[in-house]
């Protein structure tokens, strides 16, 4: 087996034979760092993500008026200390498109403060006002967390059913898990306040993540008559193209922010981070595990 692969394949693959176990090490360390980070994040914030008012309870007011954001923040902070203000601006012109004012207080408190600042009443045509009661949003959040869990378990069952072998299935599930953990970590580092739609994106990420892994595992286990390395390499070529087209479809959304709903951008953002993570977890983690497994089981 070893001999054969040396005769028929590119010299650069010796390199892979020697280092693939070490290549497994890197993503595992990265994952460990992410998990430690999330633990410390949890101990500081009482949760593993930043939540927007739809999940933590409170009000989001979106206005299309051009305002001085710092002044607005100061003005509101005098009465409501926990206010977050975000600006959506056009990437090419830098023009302010919308201002999002988020706070845990009720609309009855927040609306007059904003009206005072902009000097006119907020109505249906100049603003959007979203309010979620604290108990409801708490409940929503818990349910979405359970949904992610259920979805992960269902996905694992499908994977076990597909491959019917333990190690390859666990490898696929593990890399999907790592994708999610890494995406959550990056979202936290960028201080993204997740909405319900953002969490739904994690479910979608599970789907995207297994695509590559199923392909890799299937080719390694079923493509008879080729060396394991060439099977991995051929799936790498296909898989990376899949990820690239995926990213090509997602990335324009960040440049065309003009007038895109926030929920929409969050879904795309989480998917984009997640897809980037799949490159690491599929082609370093899962590929190494499956190669190890194939050599151990002497699959050919």
């Amino acid at each position, binding site marked *: 087996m070893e001999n054969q692969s040396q005769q028929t394949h590119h010299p650069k693959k010796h390199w892979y034979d020697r280092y693939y176990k070490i290549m497994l090490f890197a993503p595992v360390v990265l994952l460990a760092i992410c998990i430690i980070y999330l633990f410390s994040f949890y101990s500081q914030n009482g949760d593993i993500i930043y939540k927007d008012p739809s999940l933590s309870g409170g009000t989001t007011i979106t206005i*299309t008026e051009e305002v001085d954001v710092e002044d607005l923040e100061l003005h509101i902070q005098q009465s409501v200390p926990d206010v977050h203000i975000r600006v959506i601006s056009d990437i090419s012109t830098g023009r302010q498109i919308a201002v999002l004012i988020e706070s845990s207080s009720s*609309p009855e408190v927040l609306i007059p403060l904003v009206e005072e600042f902009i000097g006119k009443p907020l109505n*249906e*045509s*100049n603003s*959007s*006002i*979203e*309010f979620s*009661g604290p108990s409801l949003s708490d*409940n*929503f959040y818990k*349910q*979405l967390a*359970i*949904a*992610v869990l*259920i*979805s992960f378990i*269902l*996905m694992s069952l*499908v994977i076990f059913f*597909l491959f019917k072998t333990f190690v390859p299935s666990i490898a696929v599930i593990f890399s999907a898990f790592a994708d999610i953990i890494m995406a959550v970590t990056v979202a936290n580092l960028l201080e993204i306040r997740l909405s*319900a*739609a953002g969490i*739904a994106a994690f*479910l*979608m990420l*599970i*789907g*995207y993540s*297994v*695509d590559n892994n*199923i*392909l890799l595992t*299937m080719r390694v286990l*079923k*493509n*008879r*008559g*080729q060396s394991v390395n060439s099977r991995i390499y051929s799936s790498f*070529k*296909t898989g990376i*193209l*899949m990820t*690239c*087209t*995926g990213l*090509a*479809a*997602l990335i324009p959304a960040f440049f*065309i922010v*003009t*007038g*895109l*709903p926030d*929920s*929409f951008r969050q*879904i*795309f953002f989480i998917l984009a981070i997640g897809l980037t993570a799949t490159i690491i977890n599929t082609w370093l983690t899962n590929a190494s595990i499956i190669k190890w497994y194939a050599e151990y089981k002497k699959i050919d």
Partner: protein
Amino acid sequence: MAKITFRIWVLIISLFLALLMISPTLRDGVSIKNVDSSSKSFESGLRQGMIIKEINSQQINSLEDYNLIAEQLLLNGEEKRISIVTKDSSFVFLDSNISSITVGKIPKSNIKTGLDLSGGARALVKPVNGSLTDEEVSDLVEITNQRLNVFGLTDLTIRSVKDLSGNNFMLVEVAGASRQDLADLVGKQGNFEAKIGNQTVFIGGERDITHVFRDATQSAVYQPESLGDGTYISRFTFTITLSAEAAQRHADITKLIPIDPSSGGQYLSENLTLVLDGEIVDELRISSGLKGQVTTQISIQGSGTGTTPDLATADARSQMHKLQTLLLTGSIPYQLEIVKLDTISPSLGEQFTKTLIILGLVVFLMVSLVLFLKYRKLKITLAVILTMFSEAFITLGIAALLRWNLDAASIAGIIAGIGLGVNDQIVILDESRSKDNSTIKEKIKKALFVVVGAFFTIIAAMLPLFWAGAGLLRGFAFTTIIGITVGILITRPAFADMIRKMGEQ
């Protein structure tokens, strides 16, 4: 010319059916969203859903045209002859303006957009204590539907939703209602009582109140008066008809009340107090002539306030309208709480829709660019693009058929679903072109393994979203699942045939 296979025919027919479902049109005019049922325009026969083409011989092509004319009419405030030509008919009435009519853009197709794209208000309602049984929530939906209809809102969706832990909520989505309207009409129990002393004379609902007058002859809003402190008050009055039983009760109670001597014998010594959900709406003096009389017609009064005379009148009109609605529809047997209340500006939504179309085009372009760079074959790239487009289009067709409201998350679902579809196509392409020793049949079997495997994982992953968070995100799950199902059943087989034909050539 390549032969069109059965699978490609299926794709062509599906695309054609989707086009029929979506049925895009390019009509001019504006569509009536709502007509105030107590207005003269309503009397003349104008109704929701009609398409306005002309007002006073001026052509109406767009919302801008309409708003311009509406403003002109409002400015010169006198009563005048207004003639409105709709698509099928014409209407004439006398009024000072056309503010009783709410209009919107003509739907360009059967695709319905969700609240976050079209604008409107949404409320999620539950009782103050605990949850509702399935039966209670369907009763609540019915009463609320009636209330909003009586109030004059027609473009609405009211349904019960269930979350993962089995709690029932009522979800109300309505275009053209303000925050306050929803809070007052949906969140309120609507418990109306007319009392003398501590005795109840009549309550809201059809048992005691047989009719509520809403036309101009028996209901009115009076000229506002200044209160001196910079605010204005405007009073309103309207007549209701009591049932025989309630009228008798009124007679029995007033019989025992003495006449107030300080009023010069004009009024009784106790007042009729109108109470709504524990708050006093108004207190009315009872004319001494009514003492012990069985009267079926009672006049109800109240007031609205505001910082300008116009605001006071508008407030009075709105208060009257809501009170009339609650008197007609009666109360709900428990206290309600609005746990989520969103109002989305339609102007933001308009931008969203435009941007989404541009975004869609850019996504197609980017994906085809990547694929062209990789395969260097125009035909293959075109086949992928055609497949992507077909998937999106057929998904939209199914959404139109099911009258599914597409919100931003649903559209994200369509795009993400197409992304997954492209992944599958790449697998098919690469498997069919791979140089391993297996036969074509084995290759297709392997590609199918990946495609079907990915299909079931995505379905498994999306399933919980149908219930989590009161199903507010089910649109995302729905379009993703429809998209990938269309992919696996219709577009993917056709794509595989196209690629095979290209291979043969």
